[in-house]
């Protein structure tokens, strides 16, 4: 055995030189190792990377990698599970679900930036307080301001005071945002909220350093400085985003506890990543490509390693009869089939003089419209069988989703639709071949939608479906902004919509029909006291049988009063080449770069 004691003064320099040479060689080899580069496309251009200002999922997806919140989601757990990120643990609710106290791991640092003037900047509890106040500062026009409205004790009053003063004083304390020392922050809520942890796991509810925001005030989107595993290396706006591994990041490790080893993606991820220090990918290149063909061809041409969200137009090519085509199969491409945590729907304006109201004949009319609509054709033809019929607003994979819940009243059935219309006096009274209202006035409905190829087809399907039961419909394609406005102020009769989960709880979907949310997210302007009472009751309950029973009852009320035609839960197919290791799509987090690995040798062989 070689010990220091055994070394004589002559041998020592020789050994030192040998070791130095070996180290230099090893270092040289490491430097020469090719970088692991992941290349992919986004379907839409990003807007920027100020986490409190962004709204679109692609910008939020980048923020996910640059910043770190208190909490996040386990990569493999399904249904999703909240786990700590910079917090030491996931806290238990205190004071009846109105208080959540977090202790932040000490020694987490922001990436170096000139704004820190050469000092290492540690993440502290005060940064969270600052970020949450930023959501409410009107200057930021935060699209997620609603997350902290009527939520944190004293915050609304604080905001009002700042508005009156004409300037936001970030130094003024808020009773519900209690910072205790460097590492502890305690949130005191106005009401019990058992979904608050989900809010804190959202990828844009992340801390920012005040000096960064103030230092780059003119362009906070362009200077994201976080503690996350990646840094923004290069950004050609709306054309190219390059992330590089944060060399100072403390690293993660995959937790395989919640993996389902019967699932091939879970198994492969565990095999590829177990025991490794994440992230493994050195560089991520993202190209926003709005059109579907170049995105698809770039993947087929090996210019990209991943193809997220294969457009339905290519489904028959890529997955004929539901199986991967032979070319892609030979290349070893994997397909991850994801039921999106979202639902599409058509809102009926319950305040409309023709289809609105809660009287039996109006409810019958809406229910007849739902049953007249040929949803089967929507799924089979327009959506190329890449959708599931929604049985309630709550999509699969969301906490509170009830797989047993069925909604036969939403199924296509023209006989039932006609019978309902006949029974409640919606018959042809003037002999023109079209049904009229019970009072003899013509029954002509209108449908508003945001113009695109798909929505135009959906509008045509509505017209055709209603014509089959003798109802006339006019359709109006308008701009997205106008449609949003018209829906918010109730200037429509029937309008197309979709909702994607902000957090994985049924409440995020059921709030769409909560009466006080009229003029906001309750587009149908549905105000049913019983529904509202149940909703309020559900807010004070944690996930469990009692809350599930309430959600079930709320779903029943929605089906009974039909303020909405439930559409579908869309299915997306994500393709990956075999050299991308560890892939699994998360229903809430948009990106998964930090959990991926690249087999560079296999990638380079394929590209030759």
């Amino acid at each position, binding site marked *: 055995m070689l010990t220091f004691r055994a070394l004589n003064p002559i041998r020592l320099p020789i050994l030192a030189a040998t070791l130095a040479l070996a180290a230099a060689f090893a270092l040289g080899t490491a430097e020469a190792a090719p970088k692991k580069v992941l290349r992919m496309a986004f379907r839409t*251009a990003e*807007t*920027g990377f100020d986490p409190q*200002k962004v*709204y679109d999922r692609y910008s939020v997806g980048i923020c996910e990698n640059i910043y770190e919140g208190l909490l996040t989601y386990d990569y493999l757990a399904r249904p999703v599970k909240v786990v700590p990120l910079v917090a030491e643990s996931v806290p238990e609710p205190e004071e009846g679900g109105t208080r959540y106290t977090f202790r932040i791991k000490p020694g987490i640092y922001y990436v170096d930036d000139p704004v820190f003037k050469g000092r290492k900047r540690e993440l502290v509890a005060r940064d969270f307080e600052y970020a949450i106040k930023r959501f409410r500062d*009107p*200057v930021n*026009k*935060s*699209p*997620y*301001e*609603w997350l902290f409205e009527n939520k944190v004790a004293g915050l609304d009053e604080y905001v009002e005071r700042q508005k009156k003063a004409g300037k936001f004083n970030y130094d003024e304390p808020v009773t519900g945002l209690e910072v205790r020392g460097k590492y502890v922050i305690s949130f005191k809520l106005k009401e019990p909220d058992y979904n608050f942890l989900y809010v804190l796991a959202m990828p844009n509810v992340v801390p920012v350093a005040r000096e960064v925001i103030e230092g780059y005030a003119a*362009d*906070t*989107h*362009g200077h994201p400085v976080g503690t996350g595993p990646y840094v923004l290396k290069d950004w*050609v*706006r*709306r*054309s*190219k985003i390059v992330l590089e591994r944060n060399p100072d990041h403390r690293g993660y490790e995959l937790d395989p506890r919640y993996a389902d080893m019967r699932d091939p993606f879970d198994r492969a991820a565990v095999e590829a990543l177990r025991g490794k220090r994440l992230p493994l990918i050195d560089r991520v290149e993202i*190209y*926003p*490509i*709005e*059109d579907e*063909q*170049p995105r698809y*061809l*770039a993947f*087929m*041409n090996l*210019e990209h390693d991943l193809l997220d969200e294969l457009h339905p137009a290519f489904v028959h090519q890529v997955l004929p009869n539901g199986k991967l085509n032979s070319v892609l199969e030979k290349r070893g491409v994997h397909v991850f089939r994801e039921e999106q945590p979202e639902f599409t729907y058509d809102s009926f304006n319950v305040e409309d003089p023709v289809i609105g109201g809660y009287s039996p004949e109006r409810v019958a009319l809406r229910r007849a419209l739902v049953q007249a609509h040929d949803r089967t054709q929507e799924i089979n033809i327009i959506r190329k069988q890449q959708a599931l019929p929604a049985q309630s607003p709550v999509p699969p994979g969301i906490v509170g989703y009830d797989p047993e819940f069925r909604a036969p009243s939403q199924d296509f059935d023209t006989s039932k639709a006609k019978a309902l219309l006949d029974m409640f006096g919606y018959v042809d009274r003037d002999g023109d071949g079209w049904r009229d209202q019970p009072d003899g006035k013509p029954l002509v409905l209108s449908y508003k939608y945001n113009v695109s190829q798909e929505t135009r087809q959906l509008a045509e399907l509505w017209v055709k479906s209603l014509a089959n039961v003798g109802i006339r419909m006019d359709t109006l394609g308008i*701009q*997205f*902004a*106008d449609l*949003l*406005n018209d829906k*918010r102020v109730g200037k429509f009769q029937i309008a197309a919509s979709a*909702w994607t989960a*902000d957090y994985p709880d049924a409440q995020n979907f059921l709030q769409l029909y909560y009466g006080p*949310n009229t*003029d*906001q*997210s309750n587009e149908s302007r549905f105000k049913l006291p019983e529904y509202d009472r149940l909703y309020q009751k559900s807010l004070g309950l944690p996930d469990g049988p009692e809350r599930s029973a309430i959600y079930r009852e709320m779903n029943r009320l929605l089906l009974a009063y039909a303020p909405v035609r439930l559409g579908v839960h869309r299915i997306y197919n994500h393709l990956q080449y075999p050299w991308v290791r560890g892939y699994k799509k998360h229903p809430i987090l948009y990106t998964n770069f930090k959990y991926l690995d690249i087999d560079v040798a296999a990638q380079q062989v394929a590209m030759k």
Partner: protein
Amino acid sequence: MTAYVIRRLWQMIPTIAGVILLIFFLFNWVGGDPAQVLAGKISNPEQIANIRKQLGVDQPYWYQLWVFVQQVFTFDFGRSWSTNEEVSRILLTRVGPTLTIMIPVLVIETVLAVLFAIMVAYVRGSVTDRTIMIVCTVAMSISFLVYIIVFQWLFGFILGWFPVQGWSESFWKNLFTYAPLPIMLAVFVGLAPQLRLYRSFFLDEINQDYVRTARAKGLPEKKVMLKHVLRNAMIPILTNIGISLPGIFVGSFLLEVFFSVPGLGREIITAVNRSDFPVIKAVTVYLAILTMLINLIVDVMYKYVDPRVSFK
């Protein structure tokens, strides 16, 4: 000439005023409310009002119009409403990629169209002339979108001659790697109508008395065509190039979207989709000014191409 140029510049002012009014009223009456988009999924009327206030769209129309006029004359359109990026920076960074594609397209297309047009005009009525005209008519009947889809699939994917899409920071890499396919495509699509048009210009000249006289004098055909016919046909050709010149600054939206070229055309469409009025205003106004300036330059150039033209 100086008096002529000054007069023309002076005449631009009412035109710019008309453009400003048109854009302003179109945006306010037809364009969507940007606050609705910026407000996100869940927002209340107070938040929307706050955003409208910050954007200045809650101000009286006359005040908004005045701000717009100031922006035009100070060349400062502020920042994008959706990304907060300086509008001037957006324009400066986007015009390069657009011109990298569109200048070669204009040059190649014009040279080829003039060359082929003079050739087919010379053999007018022959099988070659008729065949080329039929090919041109068929080529013009097919949608640009179809060409893009087929060319990208064939040359980018099946044959692998070019990358399917992409753009880099290197001008030369862009010019020789990423731009050739969109350039080839645009030339292919633009050539047919240009060729037909220029052929008609040449035919008009070929039938003129001075051409008959030149031939009667015994001038060689090459000299008749290249010196006399070409020079006279250049006047309408120059007009046509002048008309299409401002278009090269906007580029082809479809090309830029399909080939991921970060150019102005793609930027404009993104701005329209996001109701990003500062970007829309800046591009439209600059394009209008550019069109007027190019028209002026083309008119001045007439003088040098055709000595019969005088400035009055």
